[in-house]
């Protein structure tokens, strides 16, 4: 059986806040071209932007670029965001946002939770010092 080759687009993005909007526009256009409905396009856009924002704010390799990889399959879109930053070993343990943090100094902690809520499948590989890869999948169909 011959395996069908998937189309793939790769972006290398400078670690600068002004470029996240470029990724948002790109992924919107890719998902739209694949035929995702408006709500799913919005979910994908929001999730991918959160991953990019984390690569910039937490990856902290200022001179470096981070990579965004779009793999277009028949029934799904896979987006991988990878950085060469400091990594984080507790990334897979993040659960619900702690809204009682109203009393704490630190704001935030929403990004990973938002990604997990909006995408069908999320995998995070992150090791101390060797960067982070976050792989997100959204299916075209309704049964996911």
């Amino acid at each position, binding site marked *: 059986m011959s395996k069908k080759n998937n189309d793939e687009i790769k972006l290398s993005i400078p670690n600068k806040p002004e470029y996240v909007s470029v990724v948002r526009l790109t992924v919107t256009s890719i998902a739209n071209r694949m035929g995702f409905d408006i709500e799913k396009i919005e979910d994908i856009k929001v999730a991918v932007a*959160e991953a990019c924002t984390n690569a910039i704010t937490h990856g902290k390799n200022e001179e470096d670029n981070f990579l965004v990889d779009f793999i277009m399959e028949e029934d799904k879109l896979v987006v991988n965001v990878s950085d060469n930053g400091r990594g984080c070993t507790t990334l897979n343990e993040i659960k619900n946002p702690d809204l009682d943090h109203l009393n704490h100094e630190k*704001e935030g902690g929403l990004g990973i939770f*938002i990604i997990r809520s909006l995408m069908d499948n999320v995998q995070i590989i992150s090791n101390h010092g060797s960067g982070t890869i976050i792989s997100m999948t959204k299916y075209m169909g309704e049964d996911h």
Partner: protein
Amino acid sequence: MSLIIEKYYYEEKKQWSVSLIGEVDIYTAGQLKETFIKLIEEKKEDIKINAEELDYIDSTGLGVLIGALKRLKQENKDIILFNVKPSIKKLLNITGLDKIFIIEG
């Protein structure tokens, strides 16, 4: 893409009116944070946000709103959001933030 912030203080209602136009993300969130800090320094009153033309807000922007609410809550003041687009409403829902801000309309 960028962010335009329009603000006005209603003396009679003792309320700030803020219109957010465009996108709040990691690039524009600083601008929003500065605006809120100034507003709250000037008058610690309710902030009513017109989100009719707010196309997008990310976790960084939501963090700014949470930070502003924390300061307002010291005086029992609130942040009210109205005319919120469905995609943003969804985000407020899944994060539970719809329970700490007042959402109208």
